[in-house]
């Protein structure tokens, strides 16, 4: 036992806990909350409305003249409070154990997948030495990824596909017809699109020859994003030819991700017009909110994965070019990245994810829902074949233009 404890690197442990707390509780969960707000505001402006713009601090209760509204930015807190204070009803006809298990099974995989996504390059804590703090750990930059697995995307898909259990169990345990239909639809849809999702990133992995997401991000930082090859090795003919399969796989990946997270136009499991609310019809209060949190968390993590694979992860847009022109270090150099650059990288990553989420929302309020047979046809007859052909195309290009 003693020897086991000796092997634990305390600095690493503390850093990991801080990273987990920072990324999942200070980044993803607030982002989940604020993407519901963004969803409502963006849907409102698309439909010529205003959206929630009033929820703020009710100073008038305390006798002041005006309320502070902050453009409604307190709305997610009010929503969360409402969800917590509502009656948590468990209907008599449900299977209690699975009924309670399902919301957890939706939200846990969505948050677990965040572990392998690099949300920044690395943070150099050298400057702490000026404040009189000393220690060996100061001079080891902290890698900004919770678990630096060498099987990143595989882990993500393995865990993310567990999310379907939550939905299926919710549909089945509710013991009611609409949730059941929603669960059935969801399971068939998620299983179908997982194939296209998995196959679509194989060309990307072939190009990198690596499954480690932080190495993938580093490569793109040094040599141009896959979709923006303007610096480093990105200027070779091979990389530009590879843009064709990459654009295809990006499109297939993005659309499959829409289907995977049950977002419009593929939100058939919860389509209001046919199935009341789909698999969460029988849920109320915080359990109901947890399905939404799971959906949005899956959306955020999916966006993070897409950003890491195709859009350079945490790297600065045109960072390589700007570095060449201005002479300021803007790209990642192992162990020698200044502290401010680490922060800028985190900001870049989050900015890209936010843009992706806004795109998600924009698409949701633009497109009508697919018919179920169209959805299946699209998944099995088009994306599956397209992704397979894409792998062969990439292999052919890589044969003549190896990277």
């Amino acid at each position, binding site marked *: 036992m003693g020897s086991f404890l000796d092997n634990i690197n305390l600095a690493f442990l503390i850093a990991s806990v801080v990273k987990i707390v920072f990324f999942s509780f200070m980044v993803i969960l607030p982002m989940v909350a604020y993407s519901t707000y963004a969803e409502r505001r*963006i849907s409102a*402006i*698309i*439909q*010529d*409305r*205003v959206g929630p713009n009033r929820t703020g601090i009710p100073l008038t209760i305390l006798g002041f003249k005006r309320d502070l509204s902050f453009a409604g930015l307190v709305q997610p807190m009010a929503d969360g409070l409402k969800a917590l204070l509502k009656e948590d009803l468990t209907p008599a006809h449900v299977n209690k154990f699975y009924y309670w298990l399902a919301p957890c099974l939706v939200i846990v995989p969505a948050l677990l997948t965040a572990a392998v996504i690099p949300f920044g390059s690395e943070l150099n804590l050298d400057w702490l030495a000026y404040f009189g703090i000393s220690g060996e750990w100061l001079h080891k930059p902290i890698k900004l990824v919770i678990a630096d697995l060498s099987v990143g995307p595989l882990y993500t898909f393995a865990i993310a596909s567990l999310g379907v259990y939550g939905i299926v169990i919710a549909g089945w345990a509710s013991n009611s017809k609409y949730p059941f239909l929603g669960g059935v639809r969801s399971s068939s849809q998620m299983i179908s699109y997982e194939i296209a999702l998995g196959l679509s990133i194989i060309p990307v992995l072939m190009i990198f020859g690596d499954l480690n997401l932080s190495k993938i991000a580093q490569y793109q930082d040094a040599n141009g994003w896959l979709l923006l090859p303007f610096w480093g090795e990105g200027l070779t003919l091979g990389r530009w030819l590879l843009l064709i399969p990459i654009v295809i796989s990006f499109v297939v990946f993005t659309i499959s991700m829409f289907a995977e997270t049950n977002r419009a136009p593929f939100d058939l499991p919860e389509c209001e017009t046919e199935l009341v609310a789909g698999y969460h019809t029988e849920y109320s209060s915080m359990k109901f909110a947890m399905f939404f949190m799971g959906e949005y968390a899956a959306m955020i993590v999916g966006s993070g994965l897409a950003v890491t694979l195709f859009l350079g992860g945490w790297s600065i847009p045109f960072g390589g070019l700007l570095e060449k022109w201005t002479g300021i270090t803007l790209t990642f150099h192992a162990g020698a990245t200044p502290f401010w650059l680490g922060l800028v990288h985190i900001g870049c990553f989050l900015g890209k994810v936010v843009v992706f989420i806004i795109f998600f929302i*924009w*698409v949701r*309020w*633009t*497109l009508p829902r697919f018919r179920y047979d169209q959805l299946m046809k699209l998944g099995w007859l088009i994306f599956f074949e397209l992704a397979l052909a894409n792998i062969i195309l990439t292999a052919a290009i890589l044969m003549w233009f190896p990277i």
Partner: protein
Amino acid sequence: MATIIVQRPTLKWHERWFITPFLKGMRITLGHAIAILLRKKKVTMQYPEEKWDANLPEHYRGAPALVTDEHGRERCVSCQLCEFICPPRAIKIIPEEIPSEDKWAKVEKRPKLFNIDMIRCIYCGMCEEVCPEQAIFLRKDYAITGLSRAEMVHDKTKLYEIGGVRTGLVNKWNELK
């Protein structure tokens, strides 16, 4: 029966695969979003701060109220027709004899109690239509609120306060006659 063959448009390949329709749709929604963000188009009125009051039509039916005439006499003679016609039975009237020493003794009756329950009132305007004395009118007040049920019952004082004075129209109880 005549058969009408619906002409379906022949779609090009990019239309069949949702490529151009998708882009068109995205452009339309983005156009709406930008128009709202740049405040080129304004649809919603921020209610408590901005009100539509100036644009209320002449025939707007708001809270019903009692009126007095130009001599300060209450026009209502307690005939109770409005009480009988009121579909949600929101009106309650208890008539009262006008004492003989009163200036308006020849009118004979006036309401002792005139309550309109604003929780029940549906603003249909039938009381106004049925009133032979033109004593009850629907005003333009629409934000009737209260913290209790009792507060939502408008009594005589409140009704005269909302109604105010109306001149003209009915002259038959005037002393001059």
